[in-house]
């Protein structure tokens, strides 16, 4: 039993889960409160990585990259909300799909124009490049950092959503938008903040992963679907749901890629297991989504008050 592999994969699953959470939490709130489908959320992931990389290249400081990146992403999110999303809240979902699809094209090409077609590497400071040794087990320090950062953001988000007035408005908006409007709250500002916050978190996810994978054009377009699956499984509008669903799906996805062939070969000849496993492991999260929908179409942890 290769413990190192097991622990590493568990941590990788946790890391993926937390990155998915960063993406999905903004998405679920935007869907839940504004009923707005934002296909271009993955673009925020990409732009965040590029912002961070640019600042790191200029200043040499990863921390500066993150901080400026967050501020920049908040601004980008606010601009997109102001100029585009806001005009579409009363429109058909189809219009949302089309416009945000168009935004993906626009953002991808703008990134190409500004930063070129090749990806952008983000070098890490030496202190983050090392490895941590515990007995026989070895983990890269940076991956632990990602996990810690993800947990920290989750904690901050939790406090924000449950202990602050803004959080209360967010939760109310997710369950009953018309009532929040009727209470005379400045709904426009609430929407702007939610959107911008979501963009910032998506950007943060991009920034965190970029040192490992490089920032590249269109990097968000595939992971965004997994984020959608997380939102569905967790329940639209529910940050708690997004958290648990993200961790579950992240772990299942990562673990199944390493271990599904082993599991399957308990039930079938090894050669079948080895051909079936890659196909099955890539389908697994979707099968899970279908299963959740069959029995609990509102998701695992829907916001209170929604049926």
């Amino acid at each position: 039993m290769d413990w190192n592999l097991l622990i590493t994969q568990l941590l990788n699953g946790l890391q993926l889960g937390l990155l998915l959470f960063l993406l999905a939490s903004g998405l679920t709130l935007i869907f839940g409160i504004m009923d707005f489908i934002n296909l271009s959320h993955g673009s925020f992931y990409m732009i965040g990585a590029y912002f961070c990389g640019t600042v790191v290249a200029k200043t040499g400081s990863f921390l500066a990259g993150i901080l400026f990146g967050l501020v920049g992403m908040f601004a980008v999110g606010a601009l997109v909300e102001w100029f585009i999303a806001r005009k579409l809240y009363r429109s058909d979902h189809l219009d949302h799909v089309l416009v945000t699809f168009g935004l993906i094209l626009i953002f991808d090409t703008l990134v190409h124009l500004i930063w070129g077609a090749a990806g952008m590497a983000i070098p890490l400071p030496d202190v983050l490049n090392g490895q941590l040794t515990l007995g026989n087990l070895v983990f890269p320090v940076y991956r632990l950092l990602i996990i810690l950062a993800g947990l920290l953001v989750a904690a901050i988000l939790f406090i924000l959503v449950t202990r602050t007035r803004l959080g209360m408005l967010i939760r109310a908006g997710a369950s009953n938008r018309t009532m929040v409007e009727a209470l005379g709250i400045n709904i426009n500002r609430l929407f702007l903040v939610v959107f911008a916050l979501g963009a910032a978190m998506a950007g943060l996810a991009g920034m965190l992963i970029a040192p490992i994978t490089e920032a590249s054009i269109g990097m968000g377009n595939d992971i965004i679907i997994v984020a959608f699956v997380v939102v569905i499984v967790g329940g639209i509008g529910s940050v708690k749901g997004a958290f648990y669903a993200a961790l579950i799906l992240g772990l299942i996805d990562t673990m199944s890629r390493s271990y599904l062939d082993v599991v399957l070969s308990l039930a079938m000849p090894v050669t079948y297991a080895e051909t079936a496993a890659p196909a099955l492991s890539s389908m697994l999260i979707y099968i899970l989504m279908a299963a959740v929908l069959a029995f609990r179409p509102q998701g695992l942890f829907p916001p209170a008050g929604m049926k």
Partner: protein
Amino acid sequence: MTWLPQTISGRVYTAILLILAPAPFIFEWINQPFYLDLLSRALILAIAVVSLNLILGFGGMISLGHAAYIGIGAYCVGIPSYYDYYNGWLHLALALSVSAGFALVTGAISLRTKGVYFIMITMAFSQMVYFTFLSLEEYGADDGLVIYSRSEFPEWLTMDSGTSLYYWIFALLLLSLFFVHRLVHSRFGRVIVGAKFNEQRMQALGFNTYRYRLVCYVISAMMCSLAGMLLGNFTGFISPDMIGWARSGELIFMVIIGGSATFFGPLVGTIAFVLLEEFLSLITVYWHLIFGIMLVALVLFGKGGIHGWLSRLDRKGAGDD
């Protein structure tokens, strides 16, 4: 001359069909075979867009996963060919049945949901198809699958040459246009269209809207798989890239350009899209930017796409009231 179309839009569409019919001979005469390729590809996509418009435009079911059926249709040609089974009827039967089966299962699950959920679920299922084909090393995975010979049909139905394949495409396109027209005006179509506008009302009238929509979804998937079968034959190369959700997004774009919930919209929209794509990419490598801006502008400012524009011309032509 009342048998001639009276409206501007009718005349435009008739003219288009009249030009499309002898197209291979026109292009041969002016020695531009490239345009025949371009047109073939456009008309294949048009079939897919006709099928998408059925559920999306007429039925209000916003599927962001329809490209999966193009992929399924294409692989139903590719995989048998890989094993040297070139029989066209086999390919046809496979494409129709596999797409129907997949649509039945995923549709049964997806159609229990609405709005945002439905859109995301259709996206997710098509990603699932994408990843499945991507992971099948045997059939090329990322590198794709090459087919060395087209689907075999009896000689009078052959699709071996560029021209004969074109007429396969043209015939199936005409059939789909006609079929959708009949379908929408039939009892079945009225339920689908009614459910798009007011599902609650339709249920109160006694219609089990879920069942009707599921059947509609399956019909649409089968039609789309025909496009996939034609595409596989046309390009001779089948890869998972045909399947991603971005492809599905492009299909929706084509529906909208032409005018959703119209009968000829899918045809003109697809031709416009393909021509635009072709010529814009000659101008600049950043043509996606223009496309994206057009899309945003179309939604924020355009009304009804090409058909909407032609209809407005009709109304103006009839005299301003």
